[in-house]
């Protein structure tokens, strides 16, 4: 067996052990690094790079070569070509070229009943044309726009999938997919894409029954979005970025967010998937809720107290994150490595942990490469069991 093949098997085994709740040989090093970071690290411009996704392999190769990773570190979702074709209002570039999600309203307050009655029809007829302005056109034009958008979507994701497989083979990276799909929690979908962050906060006080019903109506669609089209492949996780919880009162979370979310996670587990949650912002007051999810749910924490999380969910679930990525910008190499030691001492004992930062470095100026390198290498060399 070739060296890289053996390496890939060893790395896969480490992650498989972690996902099954067994203690692995070493803490796996699985940072997520944005394609934006990679583009600027290799001296390319954000504005141009997105229109030349044929360079995805070349640019990603440099990252896999220069930084220690056990798993392919990059995934990229927000193709400007796709969103520009659609005339999207929900994903746009900032003045620096970085794609982001501004506040949008896809569903008007008076359309709640329509959505609750028939969510799919309402999304097709009302929400999409509002969010994607080029679909708000005559039937011929919008058919062409939609066809073009799907062509771009399939081409780009096909390319990324192929490059991921190719570079994983080249560098002996683990054969595990943590991002097979990215459905939203039903409440987050209603908040982020339909009503907007601001409106949903007003709605849960003024028309709570409608919000509750809309979230229930959205749930089957979100579940469908996360399930694989064919048989579930092994070692595959569906990624759910949790968004609104930290901004709500606990009682509201329990009423509007948690029930459909929990059911969705349970459905994914029943289908043989792992579930990777991005536990955004500080969700320490929800640790009991999180602990109640099916065993070995992967929880990628952003802020909060790693000790408390390890104590409350770390025996049943898998933890990652908590390392403050901003330290890679503000700290020295020594400070950054010390922070890694501190985090490992808390989270590594007993397994059920792999290394990642609290969030991905976004653009080149958010993390010094020497710090990023030093931290990843430190973990790879020292976090043995």
């Amino acid at each position, binding site marked *: 067996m070739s060296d890289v093949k053996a390496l890939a098997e060893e790395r896969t085994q480490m992650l498989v052990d972690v996902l099954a709740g067994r203690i692995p040989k070493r803490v796996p090093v699985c940072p997520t690094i944005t394609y934006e970071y990679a583009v600027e690290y290799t001296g390319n411009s954000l504005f141009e790079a997105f229109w030349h996704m044929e360079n995805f392999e070349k640019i990603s190769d440099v990252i896999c070569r220069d930084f220690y990773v056990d798993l392919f570190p990059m995934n990229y979702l927000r193709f400007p070509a796709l969103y520009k074709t659609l005339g999207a209002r929900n994903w*746009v570039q*900032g*003045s*620096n070229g*970085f794609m*982001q999600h*501004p*506040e949008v309203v896809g569903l008007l307050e008076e359309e709640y009943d329509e959505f609750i009655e028939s969510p799919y029809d309402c999304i097709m007829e009302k929400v999409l044309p509002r969010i994607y302005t080029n679909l708000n056109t005559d039937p011929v034009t919008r058919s062409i726009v939609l066809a073009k958008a799907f062509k771009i979507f399939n081409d780009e994701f096909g390319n990324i999938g192929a490059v991921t497989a190719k570079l994983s083979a080249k560098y002996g990276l683990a054969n595990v997919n943590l991002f097979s799909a990215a459905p939203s929690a039903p409440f987050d979908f209603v908040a982020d894409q339909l009503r907007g*962050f*601001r409106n949903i*906060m*007003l709605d*849960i*006080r*003024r028309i709570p029954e409608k919000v509750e019903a809309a979230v229930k109506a959205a749930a089957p669609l979100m579940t469908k979005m996360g399930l694989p089209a064919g048989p579930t492949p092994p070692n595959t996780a569906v990624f759910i970025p949790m968004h*609104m919880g*930290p*901004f*709500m*009162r606990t009682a*509201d979370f329990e009423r509007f967010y948690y029930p459909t979310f929990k059911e969705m996670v349970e459905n994914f587990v029943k289908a043989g998937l792992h579930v990777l949650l991005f536990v955004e*912002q500080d969700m320490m*007051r929800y640790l009991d809720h999180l602990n109640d999810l099916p065993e070995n749910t992967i929880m990628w924490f952003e802020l909060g107290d790693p000790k408390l999380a390890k104590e409350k969910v770390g025996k049943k679930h898998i933890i990652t994150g908590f390392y*403050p*990525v*901003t*330290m890679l*910008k*503000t*700290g020295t190499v020594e400070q950054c490595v010390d922070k890694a030691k501190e985090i490992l001492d808390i989270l590594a004992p007993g397994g059920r942990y792999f290394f990642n930062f609290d*969030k991905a*470095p*976004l*653009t080149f*100026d*958010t993390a010094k490469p020497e710090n990023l390198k030093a931290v990843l290498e430190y973990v790879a060399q020292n976090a043995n069991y």
Partner: protein
Amino acid sequence: MFNAEQLKQAVGELDEEKVLAMLREFVATNPSQEEAQQAVAACQSGMAIVGDLFEKEEYFVGDLIFAGELLTNAIEILKPVLGSASSKKIGKIVLGTVAGDLHDIGKNIFKSMAEAAGFEVFDLGIDQPPANFVNKVREVKPEIVGMSGVLTLALEAMKDTVDALKEAGLRDSIKIIIGGNPVTKEACEQIGADAFTTNAAEGVKICQGWVK
């Protein structure tokens, strides 16, 4: 006339129906401008309660958004009787989301709480290059500049903005506060801001401390 204490409490409890009913009843009595100002003051005190409950983690960001909406609606009802008398401002803040970042929910919460605390806020909007901060500071001569951002890339843009204010010779005449998810003590030092917060209510208190 109205019961100021009750109005203040109702705002603090975010009891929208009660607040709006009290104010509609009050406006119907055709109050003087001075009385109308007292109603505004009571609503503003109610907002201070909201800020306190937020710091105690009884309220969360969603409640601050609702409070901002409630205050806007309250002032709207009072407008016809407020006349031209305007309440005394305690200071000026130039506020904006820095270059490259399109997020404004946190900025808008801070804005509505700062206005409720008596500041005059000049809101530049989102994705604002350093030059726009410099020009606005030159124009309105604020005591305070507030920079907001959600993405970690905002930290570099905040530093660029502080540097531009320094180059323009304006840095020494203002206090700078940065706010948003990625700000930390270390980032604040590197950026060269005077204060940082991830908590809008605390941010307003810091600003109040500066204009005392």
